[in-house]
């Protein structure tokens, strides 16, 4: 059922690891330009969902469509080339090369030479786009430092820069503010929102901290023990009794 404006469609996806059902029949659709958040307590299946969408896992049952095209089962690199980029919950960068080289290697993945014979002797010029990204995330002054020497917050930003440098149309953010202080978190969410709007990105965000998503999401889905228990606008989710129960535990008998 292709629908105009739907970028990503997760259709009755289940994923089991042995006897453990990490996801059962999860469905939702993300529209063009939306910031769509998936929330849930730890262990709700959020990261498994991302791994299915980004190609690390093949769903046991169900389909994932990106712009109408079936992508479940494609390799991560193929999915990235279609325009889906993912950031990682645990910072996943190239530690012993410079900040600039980190972003460069991501950006050149979209260069004309990439995957061609000419890439053996040519080095594409990705300087403008790379410098602009580093500026946007306040990393311009650190471009020649080794990535591992950055502070935690800066590494989280570099993580997002790597994903954005591959020029995605859909950005998957896995707890982008993990480990940040409340102040940093606020700043980061505002930045993400601004950059997503400026680049016309569709964003799918995973978060276990509800306060982060309320401010920036257009729509929210809630996972609990691998099942979607609610979906709606932030206001609806905030007041949903089932969601409150999942987060705070059942009301006292």
């Amino acid at each position, binding site marked *: 059922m292709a629908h105009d404006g739907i970028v990503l469609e997760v259709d009755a996806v289940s994923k089991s690891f042995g006897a453990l059902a990490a996801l059962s029949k999860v469905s939702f659709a993300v529209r063009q330009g939306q910031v769509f958040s998936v929330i849930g307590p730890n262990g709700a299946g959020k990261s498994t969902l991302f791994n299915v969408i*980004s190609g690390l896992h093949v769903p046991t049952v169900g389909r994932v469509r990106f712009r109408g095209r079936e992508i479940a089962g494609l*390799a*991560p*690199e193929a999915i*990235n*080339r279609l325009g889906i*980029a*993912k950031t*990682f919950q645990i910072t*996943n*960068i*190239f*530690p*012993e*090369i410079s900040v600039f*080289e980190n972003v*460069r*290697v*991501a950006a*050149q*993945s*979209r*260069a004309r*030479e*990439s*995957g061609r014979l000419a*890439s*053996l*002797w*040519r*080095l*594409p010029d990705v300087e403008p786009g790379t410098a602009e990204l580093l500026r946007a995330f306040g990393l311009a002054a650190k471009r020649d*430092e*080794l990535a*591992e*020497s950055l502070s935690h917050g800066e590494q989280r930003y570099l993580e997002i820069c*790597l994903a954005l*440098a*591959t020029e995605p149309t859909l950005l998957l953010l896995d707890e982008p503010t993990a480990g940040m202080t409340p102040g940093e978190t606020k700043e980061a969410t505002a930045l993400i929102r601004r950059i997503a709007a400026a680049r016309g990105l569709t964003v799918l965000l995973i978060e276990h901290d509800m306060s982060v998503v309320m401010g920036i999401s257009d729509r929210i889905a809630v996972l609990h023990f691998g099942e979607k228990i609610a979906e709606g606008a932030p206001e609806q989710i905030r007041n949903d009794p089932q969601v409150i129960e999942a987060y705070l535990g059942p009301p006292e008998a």
Partner: protein
Amino acid sequence: MWLLLALLPALPFMSKFYLLLAFDALLFGTIAMSLDLLMGYTGLVSFGHAAFFGLGAYASAVLLERGIVSLWACLLGALLVVGLYALVVSFFATARRGIYFALLTLIFAEVVYTFFRYTQTFGGSDGIQGVPSPRLIGDVAIDTPLRNYYLVLVYLGLAYLACRVLVTSHFGRVLVAIRENEDRTRFLGYDVQRYKLAVCMISALLTGLGGALYPGRSAFATPDLMLWTVSGEFIIMVMIGGLGTLAGPVVGGAFFVLLQEKVSSYVDWYFIVIGLVLIFIVLFMPRGLLGVRDLLGGRRWRTTA
């Protein structure tokens, strides 16, 4: 540096013996440099480079023995034989990582060694002996130590140029990314196995071409060239020279060859001495011999957090 190497034979003490020693130093330096593409840049440790070297040597020796004495034919033969073998090895080895990659390259190399050692087709344990010198063009034979020296010097120069261009290219940057974080590289849209396959092939072919030059100098190709200890020596050459520097492993290869020659001419238990020197280098010069130059030259020391 290149000028010094080019003028080396003019030095008064450069006898034929020393010219051949210099040939070995540069040849193994070139091979160590080729291996550095894998070890230093891509983070893959091959324990089977001796097979690429040995197959190159055999390809060339077999042709020379049969009267096909053109150097170019020998190089082409080595390219084909080593290329075919490397394609098979790389295909299986690059599907695995870390220790499995190392073990697969080792196992394949042992199979090749065993084949040449225990079948009589190519002379068994004696190998192929007494082959004629290859011809460059027409009647110009590479038949003196001096000519052999310049041949390997030219090969080193070309291989260095190729490797240098490669590591500064788009391709080279992706190799480093694979070394740093293979999983993340996939999520940036790179087909990692293709890159690993390509760099294995390039490294193997450069090593194989080096092997093809060997019978011209020694007039033989024996299974001992493919022993796993030879692969181990290649790895040591890269380590002592300095990983990921290209020039370092050239220095490391040359140093190893000269050290082995010098020490073994004095004592029988030269391996112990070499071992001690290597332990010293690894412990106290973690960036290898080339790292010392960087220190003296006042280059920015790598800042670690």
